[in-house]
């Protein structure tokens, strides 16, 4: 399989199994080299030139980026599996994407990505694309490659993209930066009304799911959560609470209806929000590339800083050189 971005986009937008391979490879490129995200837009434009009647002007966007977060073992993956099943039943001709992030070892950098184990029944459904990602040392609940992988999911036509974070503590709330709606999954046995009071995780939910309602303690947790939500005085939006059992598939249909309802109510606000994020992502990628270029220059020419201090070279000179190099490297792409 090629590693050429334009060719990959072209193949990913064709039919047959090879398109899946290309989409998978595109996701790897976005994961390994997150700063190349802007090239995806260029590749789309280039591919579209020959296929205008077939392809929209802009990269297609999912109807919903759904974030799912919560403590380790609360049932995020099992619930994602159940949601995918329910979505596929409710919208049979729509494609669903899943991005599932698991932690990496701080010692070896390795990881076991086990979220997919819970979702294997969808493996041969050609309308479900599941991608596991390692956090690769990134703190915050996600990983740097998530944004690019999410774009590729949109590009291949996913209607909904579910983003499962690593099992989080109380302060990893990065998912709010990529998701339109955030679901916080809680399960009985992981704290009481004091945990509900704490800042961070408990503030970011658009929607709470209390999972494992088949277990003892879930009703009590539900009551505690409701009374805790009643205490907030300046909540801008409603926060829904849904009791489910992901393993028994209880109330999953209600959860999907709720998500669809929230999406249609709120989605008019999302294009502006998404555009803002897209601009931020692109400028971040550009800065990353500049930073890498400068680091490379300093590696090959360690005297540079010294020369600047001595006054023999100006920052302007350095910028000029870097700019020329940047132009060269874009021509290679």
């Amino acid at each position, binding site marked *: 399989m090629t590693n050429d971005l334009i060719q990959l986009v072209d193949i990913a937008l064709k039919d047959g199994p090879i398109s899946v391979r290309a989409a998978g490879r595109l996701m*790897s490129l976005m994961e390994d080299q997150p700063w190349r995200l802007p090239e995806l837009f260029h590749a789309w434009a280039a591919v579209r030139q020959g296929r205008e009647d077939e392809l929209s002007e802009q990269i297609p966007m999912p109807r919903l980026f759904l974030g799912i977060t919560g403590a380790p073992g609360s049932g995020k993956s099992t619930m994602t599996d159940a949601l995918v099943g329910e979505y596929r039943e409710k919208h049979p001709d729509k494609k669903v994407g899943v991005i599932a992030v698991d932690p990496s070892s701080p010692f070896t950098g*390795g990881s076991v990505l086990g979220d997919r184990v819970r979702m294997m029944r969808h493996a041969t459904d050609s309308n479900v694309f599941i991608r596991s990602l390692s956090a690769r040392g990134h703190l915050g609940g996600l990983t740097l490659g998530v944004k690019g992988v999410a774009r590729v999911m949109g590009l291949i036509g996913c209607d909904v993209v579910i983003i499962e974070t690593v099992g989080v503590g109380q302060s990893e709330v990065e998912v709010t930066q990529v998701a339109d709606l955030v679901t916080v999954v809680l399960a009985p046995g992981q704290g009481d009304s004091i945990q509900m009071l704490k800042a961070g995780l408990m503030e970011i939910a658009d929607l709470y799911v209390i999972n494992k309602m088949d277990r003892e303690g879930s009703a009590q947790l539900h009551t505690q959560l409701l009374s805790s939500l009643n205490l907030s005085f300046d909540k801008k939006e409603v926060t829904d609470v849904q009791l489910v059992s992901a393993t028994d598939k209880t109330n999953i249909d209600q959860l999907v209806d709720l998500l669809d309802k929230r999406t249609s109510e709120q989605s008019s606000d999302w294009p502006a929000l998404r555009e803002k994020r897209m601009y931020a992502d692109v400028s971040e990628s550009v800065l990353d590339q500049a930073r890498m270029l400068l680091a490379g220059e300093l590696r090959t020419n360690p005297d540079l800083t010294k020369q600047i201090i001595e006054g023999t070279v100006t920052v302007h000179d350095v910028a000029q050189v870097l700019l020329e190099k940047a132009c060269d490297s874009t021509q290679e792409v």
Partner: protein
Amino acid sequence: MSDSTATGAKVRVLIGKPGLDGHDRGAKYVAHILRDAGFEVIYTGIRRTPEQIVDAAIQEDVKMIGLSLLSGAHNTLFKRVLDLLKEKGAEDIIVFGGGTIPPDDVPGLEAMGIKAVFGPGTPAKEIVDTLNSCLA
């Protein structure tokens, strides 16, 4: 090493157990040692069909698939995985296997395209070293 590029990208490996075999200690053990060797291991659980394993491997864009089997059905199931990979344009994914596989069956498996086979008692280091040498 398991760093495939200068950018710190990692080698992704999928561990799968095809067929009706519930012996998962070996598969989990291998997942664990590969994790400790710096690989990104996608574990898919027990009792999977070759179709599920291959489709997952393609979506995950892994470099390698490791099949673990202690049921005795390796000749047919490993072959099926290789055939499906070819069918789907992914025959460049390296496939290796392990479990209770009689030594007599190993040459046949290697001839059909299984890169290496690891039987009971294989030391962790041997597995990791062989995988790394496949990448070189």
